[in-house]
């Protein structure tokens, strides 16, 4: 007996531009997953999406962290134990073997879209 997994990748509308908070993060629930969205209007790439789950603290808090530039890279600092996660790919700067999932994210008009595997 074998099961065939079918993976569909598609862009999903998540929220409106006005739901975001400039220079900070918010959290959205997409397909049962908590995703942290960061909106940095001054940066070349304005939107970032990574998992909201903090695997060190075991709590969904990443979207409530402060955005910090470390050695030229944009990160978010976990509010609980202060590890830095790179916004582009979710890599933890302090622990090489910890990486959060990161998702392509973009504006379409006033909508915020995420590319998500289901």
């Amino acid at each position, binding site marked *: 007996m074998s099961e065939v997994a079918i993976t569909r990748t598609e862009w999903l509308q998540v929220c409106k531009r006005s*739901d975001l908070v*400039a*220079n900070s993060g918010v959290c959205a629930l997409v397909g049962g997953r908590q995703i942290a969205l960061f909106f940095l209007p001054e940066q070349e790439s304005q939107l970032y999406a990574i998992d909201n789950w903090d695997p060190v*603290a075991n709590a969904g*808090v990443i979207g*409530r962290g*402060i955005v910090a*530039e470390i050695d030229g890279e944009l990160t978010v600092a976990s509010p609980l134990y202060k590890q830095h996660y790179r916004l582009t790919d979710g890599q933890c700067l302090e622990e090489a073997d910890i990486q959060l999932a990161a998702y392509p994210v973009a504006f379409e008009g006033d909508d915020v879209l995420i590319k998500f595997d289901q």
Partner: protein
Amino acid sequence: MVKQKIVVIGNGMVGHHFLEQLANRSEREMFDVLVFCAEPRPAYDRVHLSEYFGGRTADDLAMGKVEQYREWGYDLRLNDAAVAIDREAKIVTSASGASEPYDHLVLATGSYPFVPPIPGHEHDKCFVYRTLEDLDKIQAAAKDGKIGVVVGGGLLGLEAANALKQLGLEAHVVEFAPGLMSVQLDEGGSNLLREKIEELGVTVHTSTATELIEEVDGGRLRMQFKGDKELVTDLIVFSAGIRPEDKLANSAGIALGERGGIVVDNQCRTSDKNIFAIGECALFDNRIFGLVAPGYTMARTAVSLLCGEAAEFNGADMSTKLKLLGVDVGSIGDAHGRTEGSAAITFVDEQTGVYKRMITDRDGKKLRGAVLVGDTGDYDTLLQYHLNDMDLPEHPEQLILPALDGAAPTLGAGALPDTATICSCHNVSKGDIVGAVQGGCCSLGDVKDATKASTGCGGCSALLKNVVDTELAALGVEVNNDLCPHFPYTRQEIFHMVQVEEIKTFDELLHKHGSGKGCEICKPTAASIFASLWNEHIHKKPHVGLQDTNDTFMANMQKNGTYSVVPRIAGGEITPEKLIVLGQVAKKYDLYTKITGGQRIDLFGARLEELPEIWRELTDAGFETGHAYGKSLRTVKSCVGSTWCRFGVQDSVGMALTVENRYKGLRSPHKIKMAVSGCTRECAEAQSKDIGVIATENGWNLYVCGNGGMRPRHADLFATDLDDVTLIKYIDRILMFYVRTADKLQRTSVWLENLEGGLDYLREVVIEDKLGICEELERQMGNVVGTYQCEWKTAINDPEMLKRFRQFVNTDVKDEKIVFVEERKQRRPATQEEIVKIAEPA
């Protein structure tokens, strides 16, 4: 193992030091220790005795505590003087009749005040100045008096004059010799000291010999001086020198010096090798050492020898630096230039009242002595040249001349030998400090912790910093005080830029003075500075994103991502109605409820999206935010004070409310805690707070820079008997000065320890307005107080701010990952194991 028994006779500062040193050694276990103390209380700080009249209590001055001795396992016999020593049987007998055998006996009997045999000296209004009991008697006699005379113009005599002055008496000093402090000072220094002291209202009579004391009308005393002069006074304090307390030793047949004092060798052993003598009772090389530091050295020598180590006491340097009646005085080595072939360099500034004199050898190569009056800033440097016999620089006069380019030439710490003593209170050498730095101490605070250096009188703080910085630099550790990689400035420098250039936003600050995009260090620091200066709401548009989560959501995040809520309960005072509201809110939202250490109530387990609803209910009932999440004023703890308590002398709750309502909302480099106690029993524990206020009969005593937590620090007494207005004024200035000058995340305790000049400097800035900034500090504080707003009240009425308090921006469902279990009838976060169990199907 059969333990040996040590009996210590006398529990003054030196006796205490002996016991403290022994307690810290592993060899302590080899001994049973018994202490006879004639006084009713264990050792206290006699060096600062005059502060007893300046608001410090017997407890403040205490060095040894009964509990501490018990912990150390010592058998302390208070109020029981040793009266006889049987050296053959090796037994000490006490006044109460106890007979105690010993293997080793330590005599630390100290000294007694010398009272010249002037007819009438035994009158009951004649006192000596030695113990707390003496001070109590003087205080009682001063109550109805106007004038007090001190006989003796030496170091202790001037201390006693200070005490009389603090008691509100018109103080006179009568000295037989032609000058004051004639042992330590030369003529020039002595004359200037006299001028300064007379300016302070103390009358000085030198070259004056008292011939007779007699009672005149109304119980006053008339002093008849040689040459027909006289003075009528209410009381007389004799402070004409000390004599070694050697009677017990004498009656036991132990050898004494010709003019008294228990003769000791360089191991501090008396003529009986089982008996040590240490401190002011001991005579070494025909000298009595009447300062505390040599006494401590003797104590350490005896401890080392008892523990089987080699040690020697070879005399001590009697150089001294102190403040007498507020006048700085320093004396080093041969102050009088009595050594043959001496040359002197003198600097006198009559305008500011400074006298400095260096005594060198004929070639000006070595420093033999020095006298400093009015400014002792050069003392540490000169002392190092003297003690270490270092070659003086080419132009030695530069060591005492005012520096024209503004920067005083300081001794290069690198030039000091490793044996140089940096801290004489704790006998810490340069080598000890270098060792601590090499062993991993990277800051001044670490070195202080590790070596105890500069934790005594604090006089060596500048020199210590110099040594630590030099050593860190030598190790290649860059002493970097930059705020973070984005700002190559200290917090203080950034504060200054923001203030002067009126910078209002982080982007502007980053653009003008920083680089990159900012981080979790510079963003909250900048936000805190903006708040201290301009006091805008922390959620106002340009400031969003500058705060870490607690300030952002104005609540304290707990381990599972929920928050705790702490409304302000100023002074710990709350009406039953408000208490019921807290209970109702906690019940409605099922919040775990706990009383905090700061007399407030903490409500745990609120979900992000519940915070605005909770706060709407709380603000409707009249609650304000408690700022438990901010680097800002937390609580002002208080006891009920004179309103209810039979011991209270002031309304401590009222003052706590005034203080808390004044400083609530002040953003600062770190959190600030305060307390107000209604009497000296100190039930509010004010001495462990950043700002502590303790009621006195006459007003308030202000304590500063205390700290609980990981590294507790006892607060320092800053000023005494303040009225309400002056108290608030001083707190305003201290807090604003701290806000302006502290480093990032620096508590007031560490700030003060790193402040060059320490407590004295802080007093100069705040009380004497040395920097001329007090008016500005008060204005700034006035601005913060005047623009206060409850952040929560503003937030719940602003839909834009409330947008942030949504768990998910795209749905109203709750975060299912947050799981609670019940314990002791309340909720708490489930542990990971519990969550796994709950998820498993039964």
